[in-house]
C-alpha cells in the first residue's frame, strides 16, 4: 500500500521531537479525524529555517509526510518554505494512496501554521501566507455514489 520511501520515513522519521522556545509552532488536524501534526520551527534573523522538529499523532502516511515536510523545509527561507506544497511532499515520497492524500495536505498546513505563529510573534506579514485552518477537509477523495 505504501511506497518504500513512505515506509522508510515511517520507520525512521527524521526530526522527531520538540524545540525549546521555538520561533514558531503550529498544530493542525484533530483527534476526531485521526491525525494531529505539530511543527516546531527555529528561524534565524535571515528568515532561514535552521531547525525543524515535529510530533504527529496519526497513521503511517501522517508520520511520513510530516517527516518529509521537515526535510523539505529545513535550510530554506520562509518564502521558499511557503512554496513547499502537499504535492511536493507526495512526490518526494513517491506518491500516497488516494485515501491518504489528506495527510500531505495536513503536513503543508502544519508548516503554514508554524510560520503564521512565527509571523504573529514577530509582528510580520508574510506574503502569501493565510491564517491556517485548524483542520482540512477530505474533499480530495474520490467520492462515488454507491
Amino acid at each position, binding site marked *: 500500500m505504501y511506497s518504500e520511501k513512505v515506509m522508510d520515513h515511517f520507520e525512521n522519521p527524521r526530526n522527531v521531537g520538540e524545540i525549546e522556545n521555538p520561533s514558531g509552532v503550529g498544530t493542525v488536524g484533530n483527534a476526531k479525524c485521526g491525525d494531529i501534526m505539530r511543527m516546531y520551527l527555529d528561524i534565524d534573523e535571515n528568515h532561514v529555517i535552521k531547525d525543524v522538529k515535529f510530533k*504527529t499523532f496519526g497513521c503511517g502516511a501522517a508520520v511520513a509526510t510530516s517527516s518529509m515536510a521537515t526535510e523539505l523545509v529545513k535550510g530554506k527561507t520562509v518564502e521558499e518554505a511557503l512554496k513547499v506544497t502537499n504535492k511536493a511532499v507526495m512526490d518526494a515520497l513517491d506518491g500516497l494512496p488516494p485515501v491518504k492524500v489528506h495527510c500531505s495536505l495536513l503536513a503543508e498546513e502544519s508548516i503554514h501554521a508554524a510560520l503564521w505563529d512565527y509571523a504573529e510573534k514577530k509582528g510580520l506579514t508574510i506574503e502569501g501566507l493565510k491564517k491556517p485552518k485548524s483542520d482540512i477537509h477530505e474533499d480530495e477523495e474520490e467520492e462515488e455514489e454507491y
Partner: protein
Amino acid sequence: MNKLIYLDNAATTKTDPRVVEEMLPYFSEKFGNPSSIYSFAAANKEVETKQRDRIAKSLGAKSNEIYFTAGGSESDNWALKATAEAYKEKGNHIITTKIEHHAILHSADYLEKHGIEVTYLDVDEYGLIDLDELENAIRPTTILISIMFANNEIGTIEPIKEIGEIAKKHNILFHTDAVQAYGHVPIHVDEMNIDMLSASGHKFNGPKGIGFLYIRKGVKIRSFIHGGAQERKRRAGTENVPGIVGMGAAAKLAEDSMAERAKQESDLRDYLINRVLKEIPYSRLNGHPTKRLPNNANFCFRFIEGEGMLIRLDMKGICASSGSACTSGSLDPSHVLLAIGLPHEIAHGSLRLTLGEDTTKEDIDYVVDNLKEIVKGIREMSPLYEDFLKKNK
C-alpha cells in the same frame, strides 16, 4: 519475513488442511453440477445434503433449513432485504443495534431508503444491548429483530437467548448475525428461539466465498438471488460444491473440538489481557471481560493512532487489526468503539488481537514484549502525549 504470528482470526482464518483435503476431489474429479440427472453429478447432490446435515446438527436445526450462500455478507443482506419484502403486509419496522457489522448496517441503510423504518439500539460500555430498551422499541409494525450473536471487533456476546424470548413473546422474527460466533461458541436455534442465522465459512477454518443462512421452517422468505431452482428455489446459482464440502468439514471439526479449543484460547486470551493491562500504561480492554468470544482481545492505547501500531507490529511479523478489516479504506474510527462511548481520539488507538488454534503462550509473550516497545515509541512522537505530560507535570 521470518516469524509470522497470526492474531487476526476474526478477519479470516486459515483453511484447515483437513478441510482442503476433503474439498480437493470436487474440483477436477467429482466436478459434476449437482442439478444434473446422471449419476456422476447427482452424487454431488448427496454430498451437499451431507454437509447440510452436518451444519444443521451443529445448530439443532433441520437439514432443509440450511441454505448455502456465498458468505456472511450475502446471508445478512438476504435475511434483511427478503424479510422486509416478504412481511411488508405485516409492517415496515426493523430493530437492530448500533454495533452490527456493515453487512447489516448498510443493508438497513438501503432499506431505510425504501420505506423501512429502522431502530438502532444503543449498547452499554461493554457493548451489551439493554433488554428493556429492546422490548420498548417493539411496535405493532415490527417485523424483524436482527442482533448479532457476537461482535466482530470487541468480541462481546449478546444475550441471545433472552432476545429470542422477547422476539417469540411478541411474535417477531429474530435474525442473528453469528458470523463471528458460529463454530466458536455453542448455538442452538430452538433453545435460543433463533429464526434466521448468518454464518461464513472462512471464519471457522473453512474456505472463503461460502456461507449459509439458517431459515426456520415456516418463515416466509423470498429469494435474494433469483434464477435457477437451486437451494429449494430460494437461492439461484450453480452450487459451489468444493466450498460447501469445505464448510461442512469445517463445521464438523469446529463442533468436535469446540469445548477444548475455547478453553485453550480463552486461557491464553486472559493471559494476554492481564499482561497488557498490567504492563502498558494508559491501556484499556474493550468489550465485556467475561461475556466475550474465547479468542478475542481488544485494547485501546491512549495518545496513539492504530495504523502506525499495526505497521510496526507487522514489521515484527505480527498480524493484527485495528477495528474491522472490512472498514479499512475508511478514515473514521470504528462505529463500535464510538457506540461503547469511547471518544474519537481514543477509538483511533484500538488494537484487536484474535487468537487461533495454533496460538501459543510464546507467541503471546513475543507480542506483548514488542507491543510495549512500540506503544512507547509511538507515544514519544505523539503531540497528544506531550500535551498530557505537560498538563500533569
